[in-house]
């Protein structure tokens, strides 16, 4: 059996990426709570909402690449923090309230799916767990569960 030509390999790669994008779209349809609708009657808030939603879709749709990029940037940041200017800036950023707010925004957008362990393929376990929870919980009826929950119990 002869090896496939470079053109064939590239065509397969392009097709695999198309299939990946279709699957991500399918997952989004089964977990609509991950992509909320924008707030009504506020163009500024709608613009910010679209930006943050785009960031969430980029992270959720490309978890391995997002995790790899994050690891690269963190390593570069640690290298820069070893310099005198970097160490001074690191201490200022660590004490900054504005950075605390920005961190809260990042954690809300990413739902921390890039944190924690990741197998050699690079897709973090937290991403797979979150999407599994979001997709499997979609069909449950909270009203039905609420009737089964006895009053007075936590």
């Amino acid at each position, binding site marked *: 059996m002869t090896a496939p030509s470079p053109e064939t390999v590239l065509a397969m790669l392009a097709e695999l990426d198309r299939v990946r994008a279709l699957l991500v779209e399918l997952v989004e349809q089964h977990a609509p709570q991950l992509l909320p609708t924008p707030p009504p009657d506020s163009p500024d808030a709608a613009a910010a909402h679209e930006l943050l939603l785009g960031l969430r879709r980029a992270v959720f749709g490309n978890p391995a690449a997002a995790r790899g990029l994050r690891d690269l940037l963190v390593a570069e940041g640690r290298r820069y923090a070893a310099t005198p200017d970097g160490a001074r800036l690191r201490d*200022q950023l660590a004490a900054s309230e504005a950075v605390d707010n920005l961190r809260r925004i990042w954690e809300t957008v990413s739902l921390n799916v890039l944190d924690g362990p990741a197998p050699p393929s690079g897709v973090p376990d937290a991403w797979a767990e979150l999407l599994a929870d979001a997709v499997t919980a979609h069909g449950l009826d909270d009203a039905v569960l609420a009737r089964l929950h006895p009053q007075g119990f936590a």
Partner: protein
Amino acid sequence: MLTDPRPTLAKGSELVNGLLGLVGLAGTVRALAGDDPPRESPASADDFVHLLLSVVSLGEAAAGCAGPAADPTPPGPPAPSREPPDGWLR
């Protein structure tokens, strides 16, 4: 043979715009740090802080690509004054 330089120039400007964006982001991150001097017992820096530091590092590297600012004034004798002599106008 290059007959229309505009597509090539457009590609170059995307790169320049990207580098400018990095420099701008680095400035924004520095602004987040504020002007206060670091405390004697600083808070511990997590991965998010190091991620922001990398933006500053990359922004400085992008700014370094520009090299020293070019002097727009070419060397040579000073240009003659354009002011007409008062006597000639009278």
